[in-house]
Every structure is written in C-alpha cells, then in structure tokens.
C-alpha cells in the first residue's frame, strides 16, 4: 500500500515530517488537583492527577519517596466500534506501567515521602499515538497540580513506511505493520525517559526515525510550555497580581 504518494503527501495530506494539529487545555476536571485535555489530530485524551495525598494502602507506603500510581483506560466510545472492554486487559496494564515509569522519572518523588500521587488517563477518541498523547496529557496535569518535576516529559511517535520516516503516525499508518517508535524525552535535560519500538529497523534508519521523533517531542514541548505559560498568566490576573 502507498502511504506516501510520489508527490510527498501522506494519506491525510501531511508531509512526512509534519505532526498532526495539537491542542491542549488545562483544568478540565475541577475536582482533580490537576487535569488536562490533550489532542493530537483525532486522538483525544484526558488526564487527571490527585495528590500528593495520604497513601491509601499503608502496606505500599514508601518511606523515602512518593508512591506514583497510574491508570490508563480507553472509553468504550473511543474507537469506531463500541465495545465494552474489560478493565485491566494486557494492553492497558502495559500502557499504565509505561506511563507510570515515564512520569516517575521526572517527578521529584524524594520531596514527598510517605505520600501517593494518582494519575488517571482516559482515551476519549483514539486515532493512533494514544500512548504519546497520554504522556503529554499526564505531564500537563502534573504541572497543573503543582507537583515538583525535574522537567516536563513530552512524547511523540514516529514510524517508517514506504522507506520514509514519518512523524506522528495516525491509526491507518500505525496499523500498516511498519516500525513504530514511541519516544518520551525531557527536553531541557535532553534525556530520554521512554523508548519503545515494535518491528525491526536497521540501526541507521532507526537513528533517522528517532531523530525525527526527538524533533516531534521538542515541538510538543514548546507548545506545552506556551499553554502552561498562558495558564499561569491567567491565574496571575485572576489573583490580581
């Protein structure tokens, strides 16, 4: 199948190095300590953060750092066919774990011993790249909750189809069977916190694809930073400072 036309356009009209349109909103769940909505094209996720708060299950309490928990779910209506999905299936367990580990790496957990931070992410609409969108949303929600972090984690995926590296795969491209690299970085520290790939790539192509994903993450970071700054300015004006 032709995923990139000889004219250099992808199926949805993007060029190989282009991301989908991204949009973010902070404070969408009033009850949560921090929350955010994140859209990458038709992929739409919501994240809510509770904490730091008292550890619910005492046996899990850590004496030197905070306990980070994460739950990833997909809304039944998030895909075209409405199906009741069992909670805690393999895929969501894995993604929950991935997001928890990625966020744990940037939260300064040692500052909040004997406490618990809960991150809930839910996919409202899925169109490829849900993992990346969830991490971006969680990152924003954590920032909104005012949880101390080393840096913002941002994530973006990239793939390799028709011998072309493609940024930010949508669902059709994702299910094409080519390699799919999901990358999470801390842009200021220039560190990688998440790197996943299915399928195989040669080292040279992998480096190209990864470089593209890094560019993508940085672009997301710039946008997230703007959103946070805007949000802070609004808070400022509301408080009348």
């Amino acid at each position, binding site marked *: 199948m032709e995923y990139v*036309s*000889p004219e250099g356009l992808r199926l*949805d*009209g993007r060029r190989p190095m282009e991301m989908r349109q991204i949009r973010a909103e902070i404070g969408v769940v009033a009850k949560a300590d921090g929350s955010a909505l994140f859209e990458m094209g*038709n992929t739409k996720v919501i994240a809510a953060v509770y904490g730091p708060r008292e550890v619910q299950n005492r046996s899990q309490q850590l004496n030197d750092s905070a306990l980070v928990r994460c739950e990833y779910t997909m809304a039944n209506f998030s895909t*075209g*066919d409405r199906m009741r999905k069992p909670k805690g299936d393999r895929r969501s367990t894995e993604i929950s774990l991935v997001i928890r580990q990625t966020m744990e790496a940037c939260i300064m957990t040692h500052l909040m011993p004997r406490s618990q931070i809960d991150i809930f992410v839910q996919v409202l609409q899925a*169109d490829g790249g849900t993992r990346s969108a969830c991490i971006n949303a969680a990152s924003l929600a954590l920032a909104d909750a005012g949880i101390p972090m080393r840096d913002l984690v941002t994530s973006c995926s990239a793939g390799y189809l028709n011998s072309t590296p493609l940024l930010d795969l949508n669902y059709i491209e994702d299910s094409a069977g080519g390699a799919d690299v999901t990358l999470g970085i801390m842009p200021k520290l220039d560190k990688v916190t998440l790197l996943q790939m299915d399928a195989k*790539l*040669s080292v040279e192509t992998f480096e190209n694809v990864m470089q593209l994903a890094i560019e993508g993450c940085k672009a997301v970071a710039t946008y997230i930073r703007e959103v946070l700054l805007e949000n802070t300015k609004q808070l400022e004006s509301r408080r009348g400072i």
Partner: protein
Amino acid sequence: MLQNKSFVKRTRGGKITKVVREHYLRHDIYCGAPICKVCDTSQARLSPTPSTILIFDTNVVLNQIDLLENPAIDDVVVLSIVLEEVKNRNLSVYNRVRALCSNSLRKFFVFSNEHHKDTYVTEMSGESKNDRNDRAIRVAAQWYQTHLAGSARILLITNDKENKRKAIEEGISAETVESYVRSLSRPDLLDLLVQPASEDVNMEEVEDLRPSKRKIIYTEHKPMSEITSGLHRGIYHQGKLRVNRYNPFEAYVGSESIGDEIIIYGRTNMNRAFDGDIVAVELLPQDQWHEEKSLALADEEDEEEDVHLVPGSADDAPRTTAQPPGSAGVTEPISSRPSGRVVGIIKRNWHSYCGSLEPMAMPAGSGGVAHALFASKDRRIPKIRIHTRQLENLLDKRIVVAVDSWDRLSRYPSGHYVRTIGQIGDRDTETEVVLIENDINTRPFSSQVLACLPPLPWSVSSEDLANSIRQDLRQLRVFSVDPPGCKDIDDALHCTSLPNGNYEVGVHIADVTNFVHSDTPLDDEASQRGTSVYLVERRIDMLPKPLTEDVCSLRADVERLAFSVIWEMTPEAEIISTMYTKSVIKSCAALSYIEAQARMDDSRLMDPLTTDLRNMNALAKIMRERRIQRGALTLASAEVKFQIDTETHDPLDIGMYQIREANQMVEEFMLAANVSVAEKILKHFPLCSLLRRHPTPTREMLEPLLRTAAAVGLNLDVSSSKALADSLDSAVADDPYFNKLIRILATRCMTQAVYFSSGDLSPPEYLHYGLAAPLYTHFTSPIRRYADVIVHRLLAASLGIQKLPTIFQDGNRLTSIADNLNYRHRNAQMASRASVELHTLIFFRKRPTDTEARIVRIRSNGFFVFVPKYGIEGPVYLTPRGDKGGGEWFVDEQQQKIRKMDGSMSYSVLQTVFIHLEIVEPQPNRPKLQLTLV
C-alpha cells in the same frame, strides 16, 4: 502553515462503521506550470509554453490509457482524485499512469487537488460520490483556468455528457476524447481510441443483417452482491481461470472451497472469462460431468493441437484430463472430476495481446473504418474484434491489441489497436512477439542505471587487494568450464592436492555485489528483470553489458573479484571443512565443455591443469554417486542446440544437446556450493533467507507417467524420490533410448522448483525433491540471475563483511521479490522455448524431413509423438480431421494402444514410428509444423 480539518465519513462492507479521518488542506501545492508566477516552479513538469493543458476525467484515463501513452498526448495535469479512482478500479492502469507521471520525457503533472485548499470540495447532501468527484475535477479545472489566467488554454476531456455540459456552463472548455483526437488530425491515433459504448450500436446493426447471429450468446454475469452471497453459501466457487494451452475450449479453475480443480468445457460455459481472470463458478449437475471434449469442440470452429517443444516440466506440459477419450458405442463411466460454468467475473485479467488480423477482404465504403478480427498468438485468448482505419497496413503485420469489453450479444470481445510490431514471419518481429508475450523488458538500460557502473576500463585496484576481507588467490590455478562462446562466465574452479592427501577444492563465483549495491537504480533494474534471457540468437542481459561481459565475467588471464567457497575434501569426497571468502582470482584458462572433456580423455596430457580436471572429475563422480544414493533424480530433458549461420542468423542444424562428463563435473560442484551456501545463510538468517524448493509431486501429477509405464509393463515406485530414482534406474529395455524416454516423461510430471523466503514456510517444506537436498539455493550465477545476487548479500552479511540491506527486514518485500523472480524465471524459460520453436519452424521451412519418433500419448483419433532428434512433440492424426475417431480406430485405455477395428494395425505407447516433418500453412500467416506417418 495553516492546516484545516475536515471529516470524511466512510462505511465499510459488512459491518457499517463510521470512519473519521483527518484531511489536511494545504497552501503549498503548486500548479506545475513553469510559466506560473505565484507557484514554486522547481517541481514543474509541464512544458514552458503550453498551448493547451489537458485534464482528463477518470473514465477517460481508465479506458483510453493506450492513447495517453502515445507521445502525441502531452502537457497533462493528472488530478489526484482521478488517480485515486483509477487505483481503486484498475491497478494496472494506475501503474501505467504512474509510470507516465514519473517519466521525465513526458509532461504529466500530478496535481493533488484533494489536498489543495482551493480545490477541495465537500460532498453535498444528496450528491453521489461520482458526482462529487466530477465536480472536484471541474473545480480543479476552473482553478487552473483562473490560476494561469489565460496564459494557457485548459481543456477538460470527458466522455460524460452531463459532466461536459456542466463544465461548459461553468465556463470551462471541455471536449470528448474523440473530438479532441480528431482535432489533432492524426488518423493513427483514432485507432487507439476505445470505442465508446454508444458506437456499439453501430456494430450490432451490422450483426442484425445476419439474424442467426443476433441471439444472446452468453448468459448474463451475476451481479457482484449475488456472487458474494453465493460464495458465502458455498454454491459458487472462486478461483483463477486457467485455459488449457493446448485446447482453448477447456479451462480449469483451482478452487480452494472444493479442494479440486473444476473443469470448464467450451466458451459458453467459460462465459466470456479470459485466462487469468478471477471467476465465480457454479458446479454443473453431476450427470453432465462427463461432457466430452469433442462435444466442446463441435460447436465452435475447429482448432487442433499444434506441434510444440517438449515440455520441460508439469508447468508447461499439456494438461491431461483423467477421463478416457470417447469411442462410439461404449458407455462412459461418469467422470469424478467436477465440471462447472462461470457465473461471474470477480476480477478481469485483461491486458494487451500480440497477434495478427484474420485475413479479410477490404470492405467497400463505411468511411474507411473496417471491422476486423484479431487472432492472438496466445491460443488461450479468443479472437478480438477491432475497428481500424488502416486495415491495408495491418493485414500482414503483427500487432498489439487491447481488450475493452465483451457483451453477451457478441461472440468475440471487442478491443482496439495499440501498435504495430512488424511484418509477420520476419524473424525479428516474431522474436519481438515472443518477448512481449512473456513480458520481458528489452529496453536499453537507462542513464541512471549506467551511472552506477564502475569507471571503465575497470581493473582490480590496489585497494581491492589491500582490503582485509578479500583473500588474494591469484596464485591458484583457477579455470572455468562453460559452453562454447560463453561471455558471461560467472563460475570458476580450482583443485589442489594438499600434503595430507586431501584436496582443496574451490568454487569461485563472480563478485557481482561488489558492483551492484542495494538500493541503487542498477539494483532495482536487475531485481525487476530478475534473470537474463537466452534466446536462440540473442541474449537479453539482466545487468548492463560491461558488467556482464567484462567486469564481472571471470575471463581467462585477467584479475577478477570473486566470492569463493573453498572446501577441504578427502579423496572420498567427504567435506572436512568449508570456508567462504571474498577473493581476487586470476583464471588461467576459460575452457569449453568440449575442450575440458578432450583434455581429460587424452591420456597423453599430463600438465597440471589436466591433472586438476581429472582429480575434480573423480571427486565429482563420487559426489554424484552419493547424491543419487540419497535419492536425487537424474531427470532428462530434450534440450536442443541450434547451429546458427553467423551471417543470416538462420538455423543451419539442430540436434540434441549433448551432456558430457565435464558438464556433470561442473554441475556437481555448483550444486555442492549452492547447498553449502544455503546451509550457511539459513543458519544466520532463519527468517529471511532466499532458498529454492522443489515440491514433492503428488501421486495425481505422476498419474500420466504411471499409466504409460504400466502399459509397457513397467512398475514404477513413486513413494519417495529415492524409490522413484531406483525404479527409473531399473527401467531398462533392449532399446537403448527407452530409459531416457521414461526419464523425460517423469520430468514433465514434476512442477518447477521455485524461490521462496525461508520465513514463509516451515523447514520440512524447504525440501528440493529433484536434488534430494533438504536445503538448496542459487549462488553460482549472479551475473544472470538476481536470486544469486540476493544470496551473495546474505552470505556476505553472514560473514560479517557487509551489512544486510534493509529489504531483508521486510518479510512482504522479500516474498514479493521471490514471486517476481519465479515469474521472471518462468517467463524467461517460456521465451527461450518459444524462440527455439520459432527457429525450428524456420529450420524446417526449407527442409521437409523424415525421421524417427516415439509415441508418447494416445488419443481417440491419433497419437502424440516425440521426436528425440529435434526435441519436439506433436500430434499425428490417423483419421482425417473433423472426423473424430469415427469408429475406424479403437483406443485401448488400459494398454495405451490404438487399434484399427479390423485388427490390421495397432500402435502402442512408446513405440517407434517414422514420420514426415513439413511446414504447412493452413491459414495464411500461421505456418505450422505438420507431422504425418510415413
């Protein structure tokens, strides 16, 4: 860059789901005209000052692709919506349009109107998809008109009346294809036009004059929805229709749902299906299954079996049906093989065909347009009706014709003229026909491909010698043994005695991958061509000539780069160790098989080279013996060799190709090298090795052999290749040629070996039946086979010399490469055979001959004979044609005999007869070889 978003809703078959996809509209899509002042013109493809820019609608592109390919049509803007529709409806037309768009000589520009912010249109409520797309085409045309503002005329070409009317209303100039082509005043282009459906009325009126022909000839095809549900319920069966090469009124559909082949007799039952179409078939009631072939032949014009080359394997052997030929008065048992009829065509396999027009008188009047019947060279294709304005030019020419439609009122499909190849009977023309029919690319290599060649004249450089991966083997006494006059020498050998009494034996293969790097135009071209094609008088190379004949060729007395497999062998030919390395060699002699054989046979010669040859021959004999012990089949083929006049290129003499010990010696070491390499690459790359397998023949496939053998009192054991080999060995009679004949018959029951990717099959399926080798591949002829190039890359990667190219990580790509190689390989063989057939015809044109022949198959009105001397096979009729075994002759199926009723004469299978060979021309321009009993 602003991106807008819109939603496209789609439903898929079966379950209705709403699919939402993003659709970005862009500013940065340019018009492709160099005169444009606003757009970026770096990608522009149209001519600098186009007088008219053409925009075609989808149906025009789909139907008139032959016209589009004509260089007279240029400055075309192809809209992406048109491309998309074409792609959905006909992939081969799509590929042809894409080829036009990427051809730098043609001025075709693809305008992505679907992603341009000004030309994207959303579907209006109540508007059908087609109407929406037509509107999109008009909007794009209008955009061009305003965008280029009068500097060029925009012309929309459409055959849809409604579309044209609306276009003119909207102020776009629009024309039909016909009126446009007429305005070009090029009568030859008009022939390329597919006649629009409205003109068919004309055709039917002609037929109206003959009331007998005005009936409905074929039943209607079932609508697709009915076919789908029929397939679902199991009353229809889907499969690819294959027409019998030797009897175009008989076809087979391999059906997975039945697990057997469905036979389809007669054109009526075939219901307008072509060879290669995917069809839906309905089974006939069981009492109609025994429908005779003669019945099928009776209602259409008579065709008969032709003289052909002896088939090399089951793939090109005539299909034998299981039922015995009919004879009067005997009630036939009902055949167990299902027969059926075509109810619908799921996918057409129409392409263009080579052939000539049926001879006909020049029609009077009718405005210079003549209706002619075209007969394809490929007998599986029915005659095709075409319109032409240049009849007198075409009558004695080979021409290419494409099929357009086949309605159920007409006996024959209608098509249109594409181009002329040349004079009928001319050798070059006929060779060209052979090449086109087998889809062989004979175009010269493009400049991009030639740019990948190393600078010439090339010689081994000091860097090559200094390279640590390359062993310097120039001191070895390496030599090559090939057919006489061979220029593309891809293998050489050496054999030295070691102090410990063992031998060091090396096989050196031209290091093609040193020059052909992956992902270069050269590599793409070679992978497309797949193999070199050897015709009787000509060779079509896979790689450009400098590589084939000089740089890679392991010629004598020059230093060349090689990829070597070196074994240490005991005098009992046990392999002690194997080493693979890239090397530099210097061949000391390029021998022909005859020379090598003469050296070995001449006991006075004691020079080192001859000693090496003898040592190798001794080893080869042991290896061969061992291979046969393992159960390898010694199969025989009836290959013939022509002697060609160097001036006129006419064949002077033909005879069986003689196989000498020297041939077998070289073959043995090549086999050993291939097996060693197969083991090595599979060990390193279990999922992406390119191997070669030969499937075990089923008992059904061996049935004709067993029946023949049983008739002459021979009992063949076919339980395993070993058993078969043994019983073939014991099949000896007083007749010295008997054994070879049986082997030839055995060979044609087998299918051909095929390439495959090791990831696609499980290890037990890797077996090469004929060689009795669990693993086999092709390594030894990289100059003329692309498979070997791939294997060289794999071997280099397994030695850590080079990185594995990325295509190996893509299982689908590798499978498609293997499929292409099989296809090309098979076509190359077919082309060689056709070329030999052609030359046989030329040879016998002036030389009617009497010769000895063997009966190989019995038919109701004669038998098939095999002529060993010329390697041909053909029918001999005992009764005059048309009289289908009218009672005078009687066939004994059990004994494979044909007897005269009064018992005065009988012929049995494998019997020797004397026949007369002569060229006759029953129809003009269709010369053929006729065999008659003397």
